[in-house]
């Protein structure tokens, strides 16, 4: 096809490497497609799993003279140079989910990862108030990976959680359910009964990680009594709702924060607004909500949940 | 089986390797296929065995035309092909190689014991002393060649093609082979025998066919011609062979260029000898006598447990091969395919490699110099090649060997170790190469030749060391050389008695 005269929106996101990114891509594409059809503009949607490649995609789209670019960086700072090329070219730039320190795009929009961590810390304090009063509470940490988002969640957690929480061991799961499952299985099969029984909570960065841990706990046939009382996730997806219904484990509570893949739609909407020449705020935070056994049924009736599973 | 090949043509790109060649073999005959290097012998046999298809012409077996020959099909038709270049799987055992493609199997399961027994039976029948369970990669070159031959004898065949089967073999092993060939011939098996060793051809063959430059020249009974006539037929001009050493003043000087003192390796012990300026020393022995490893050890390519090798500058540190080369020693290795050629590289690159390693000083390679370097060797040894930028694998076996020789001649070393240097080289060129080696000696170089071929030994040797079980059994001076003596000493005469 030749060149069209329609304005162009470029969207660049991470590639699908785990559930959250994959579902987000689907929402992002659906939204941009819908808006493009409704309002008669053209769009390019590109995913890449690494910053160099994302920079390439940004530059390629920039070469097509877009009216706006919506960028979800793999990691914020690494895209600074590419982002600067966009603003240097006078193209409005919406940045989603990550920040580029010291760089001001047209608008930023993100879920609030620090808030999620802080909220989890408070929830943990509350949940274990009795135990904390008595002494230390041991927990295991299962990280997503070593990028900024999980770091923000952990740092948020540490900033609010009681100093009596004692992290016994930390794992890097690369967001993989299978990895977290194997790590938990190994832990359960190699640690002493006393060690295993001392663990009361598990702090994680994602629902999928929780699924693996739950499977591992179900597979455990050893002599230790499992004293884990609370496991948290982030995302609040369908699978986690099923855990509230019936996790197959007794005496374990779950908690998660909404962090919907459909949030990327908001970023695309902002992109459209920028295309229309509307002035935007510099920064938008998409509120997140704590979900546990007390409110999950309500949540499943909410608009947020419905949009998430509308595709 | 009666085989006729009619008007076969085959080209490789611009090279016409075969032009309308016709050739036939009757049942129970041993048919010598003669020709210079690059005449098209191997190509003709490759067509027969289905390695690649002919461009035109027919293969007719017992009156029926065979279309679309493949290696598998030719195997099924009881045609066996012993390839000129070793083609064994080094990672497999001897018996597995022998049965490859035609296993004794039921429901896909290999009957290992049956195979081992049968393979061992053939190996023993041939008097090889090879264990059917050994890993082929651990065998010496001569043993590998014997395995290739044994492989052809495993099943009842009707035609056995032997493309230079004896290049690495000793007289005794060749005699063994001939005994077996004669027996099989009496049972109606036919052979196509390709060799550049005229005495062998005249000993074993009934018929001959001569090819020259891809064309058919002549066919007939071997009894109707003699060696000299045959040689002239295949080179297409008159040929005067004389003994190169007779009547020549000996150039042997008194300076010792290479001194080997109580050298011990994995398969040889306490080997001591010295080679003087202008001297050609031949070392010979049966497979298993340690000659294979001695050759590489002299060059720093096999581990030495004990002993020293010295040049005029004193004992060599044997740090690495390059240092040995820089000390003025060159080595033409045996087993061209495995140790000699760099198959993905061009003729020119192969030809220059040794020079690069030991002598090249400039930052860049000059195409012009490399071209001249090859032109020199091509002229010296009459190498049949198209462009020097063709891959070396496009050459016939003998021509590849000449390139390898040329590669080492370019080094201008003081001491030459030549391990089976004329493997696969045709009669005319061999003579030229013997002349070359004698000239090198006359120019003051020291030459050590590892050889098992008596005529070659006789053309070259000032002295001959005969190895037996890893030790020097005897040293024969030129005047004492005879085939019988060499054979006696290499089979242990004078040793077992002690």
């Amino acid at each position, binding site marked *: 096809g030749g060149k069209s005269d329609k304005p162009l929106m470029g969207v660049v996101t991470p590639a*699908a*490497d*785990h*559930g959250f*990114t*994959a*579902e*987000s*891509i*689907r*929402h992002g594409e659906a939204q941009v497609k819908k808006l493009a059809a409704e309002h008669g503009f053209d769009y390019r949607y590109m995913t890449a799993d690494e910053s160099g490649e994302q920079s390439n995609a940004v530059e390629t789209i920039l070469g097509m003279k877009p009216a706006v670019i919506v960028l979800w960086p793999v990691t914020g700072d690494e895209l600074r140079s590419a982002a600067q090329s966009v603003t240097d070219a006078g193209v409005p730039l919406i940045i989603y989910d990550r920040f580029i320190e010291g760089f001001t795009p047209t608008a930023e929009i993100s879920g609030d990862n620090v808030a999620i961590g802080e909220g989890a810390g408070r929830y943990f304090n509350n949940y274990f108030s009795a135990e904390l009063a008595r002494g230390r509470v041991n927990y295991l940490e299962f990280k997503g990976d*070593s990028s900024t988002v999980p770091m923000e969640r952990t740092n948020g957690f540490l900033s609010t959680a009681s100093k009596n929480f004692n992290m016994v*061991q*930390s*794992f*890097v799961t690369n*967001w*993989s*359910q299978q990895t977290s*499952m*194997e*790590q938990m*299985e*190994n*832990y359960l*099969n*190699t*640690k*002493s009964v006393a060690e295993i029984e001392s663990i009361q909570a598990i702090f994680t960065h994602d629902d999928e990680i929780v*699924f*693996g841990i739950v*499977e591992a706990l*179900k*597979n455990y*046939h050893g002599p230790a009594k499992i004293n884990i009382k609370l496991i948290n996730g982030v995302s609040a997806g*369908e*699978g986690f709702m*099923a855990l509230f219904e019936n996790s197959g484990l007794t005496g374990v509570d779950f908690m998660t924060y909404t962090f919907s*893949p459909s949030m990327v739609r908001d970023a695309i909407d902002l992109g459209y607004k920028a295309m229309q020449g509307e002035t935007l705020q510099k920064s938008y935070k998409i509120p997140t909500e704590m979900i546990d056994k007390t409110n999950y049924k309500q949540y499943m009736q909410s608009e947020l949940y419905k949009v998430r599973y509308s595709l | 089986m009666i085989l006729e090949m009619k008007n076969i043509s085959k080209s490789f790109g611009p090279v016409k390797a075969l032009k309308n060649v016709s050739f036939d073999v009757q049942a129970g005959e041993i048919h010598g296929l003669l020709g210079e290097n690059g005449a098209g012998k191997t190509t003709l046999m490759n067509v027969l065995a289905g*390695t690649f298809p002919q461009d035109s012409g027919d293969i007719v077996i017992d009156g029926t035309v065979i279309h679309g020959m493949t*290696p*598998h*099909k*030719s195997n*099924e038709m009881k045609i066996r092909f012993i*390839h000129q270049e070793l*083609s*064994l*799987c*080094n*990672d*497999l055992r001897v018996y*597995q190689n022998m049965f*490859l*493609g035609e*296993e004794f199997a039921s429901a*896909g*399961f*290999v009957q*290992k014991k049956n195979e081992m027994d049968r393979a061992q039976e053939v190996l023993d029948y041939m008097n090889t002393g090879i264990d059917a369970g050994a890993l082929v990669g651990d065998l010496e070159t001569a043993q590998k060649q014997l395995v290739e031959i044994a492989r052809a004898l495993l099943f009842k065949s009707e035609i056995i093609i032997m493309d230079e089967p004896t290049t690495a073999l000793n007289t005794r092993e060749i005699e063994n082979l001939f005994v077996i060939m004669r027996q099989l011939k009496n049972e109606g098996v036919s052979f196509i025998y390709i060799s550049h060793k005229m005495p062998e051809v005249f000993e074993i063959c009934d018929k001959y066919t001569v090819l020259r430059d891809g064309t058919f020249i002549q066919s007939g009974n071997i009894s109707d011609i003699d060696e000299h006539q045959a040689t002239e037929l295949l080179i297409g001009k008159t040929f005067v062979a004389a003994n190169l050493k007779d009547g020549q003043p000996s150039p042997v000087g008194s300076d010792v260029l290479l001194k080997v003192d109580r050298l011990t390796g994995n398969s040889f012990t306490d080997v001591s000898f010295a080679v003087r300026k202008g001297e050609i020393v031949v070392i010979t022995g049966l497979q298993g006598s340690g000659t294979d490893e001695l050759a590489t050890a002299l060059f720093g390519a096999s581990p030495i447990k004990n002993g020293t090798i010295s040049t005029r500058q004193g004992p060599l540190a044997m740090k690495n091969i390059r240092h040995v080369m820089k000390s003025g020693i060159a080595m033409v290795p045996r087993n061209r395919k495995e140790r000699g050629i760099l198959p993905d590289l061009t003729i020119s690159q192969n030809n220059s490699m040794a020079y690069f390693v030991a002598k090249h000083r400039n930052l860049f390679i000059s195409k012009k110099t490399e071209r001249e370097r090859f032109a020199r060797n091509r002229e010296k040894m009459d190498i049949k090649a198209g462009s020097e930028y063709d891959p070396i694998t496009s050459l016939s076996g003998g021509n590849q060997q000449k390139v390898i020789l040329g590669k080492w001649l370019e080094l201008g070393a003081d001491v030459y170790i030549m391990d089976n240097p004329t493997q696969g080289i045709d009669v005319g060129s061999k003579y030229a190469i013997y002349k070359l080696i004698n000239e090198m000696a006359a120019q003051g170089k020291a030459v050590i030749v590892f050889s098992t071929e008596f005529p070659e030994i006789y053309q070259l040797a000032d002295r001959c060391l005969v190895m037996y079980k890893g030790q020097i059994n005897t040293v024969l001076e030129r005047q004492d050389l005879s085939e019988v003596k060499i054979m006696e000493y290499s089979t242990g005469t004078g040793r077992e008695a002690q």
Partner: protein
Amino acid sequence: MNVPFLKNRSVKDTWHNITDNYSHWLSFIILLIVAVIVNPSFLSWSNLTNQFVQGAVVGICAMGMSLVISAGMIDLSVGSSVALISGLGVTVLNSTGSILLCLLFCLGAGLIVGFINGILVTKGRIAPFIVTLATMSAWRSVINQLGQGGPFTVSRELYAPFRAIAAGRFLGIPHLMLFFIAVTIITAVIMGKTKFGTYVYAIGSNQQAARLSGIGVDRVKTLIFVYAGTLYGLSAFLLASRLTSIQAASAGNGYEMDAIAAVAIGGTSMDGGKGKIIGTFLGVLMLRIISTVLIMANVPPFLNGLVQGIIIIVAVLAQNRKK
């Protein structure tokens, strides 16, 4: 005088023979000792079986990879193939309600996936590296497209019986362990006792010689990929049962590297021609033991990779006897 010398020799030869043929056992045992030192409870039955359970899914793929590598080829499409097949397998399971059909589907799909690799390599004359790089990329893309980012989750009614396949035990032995051992034995028999196995090694050792011996090289190569693909199918089935939910984007990620690493650490040469199935088996377990030791020793998570790298090098160095 000769006799002691000879005796000496034969002792030395035997030792050489052992270190040569059983070198993978050597590094395996060293690792095992390290593991036990780090934590004596490593040797508990529950932990030992757990090593097999965790190794099974990748381990079954590694058996297929052994053939591929022994023939001098490579397969990068493992992880994507597993993701594709298990995602589709869950769909088949949910829609038919039959575990048997799901299993048959997985095996059949694996066979087809392998066949496609094989045909492209043999008929297309494209290097296995490129072919499987392309199919790696293609299958991941297909399953992502089909899943549209969402997971493939086993429906609630089928959850318990389907999960029991991977989670269950037979006479106290986990099913996954049995599957893994069975596949190992079958593969070892194929490679050690059949014509086909010999051909695989022959092709890896000297393809031209194999061809000249009348072996249908293309056919054998295709069969190798088909066998490997079928094992990926089995592996996909077991993975689905183990996770009961397959995330298209990440399932099976990195399996090819794990499988190749297991084969290589098990002493199979990457150049083809030689390889021991039992070596691959031990290689899979060694990788598992390394992971377990990292957890037992509470190595800081960011340093896991460094320690893992060092252990791999040391384990392989231990195999390389001095020449």
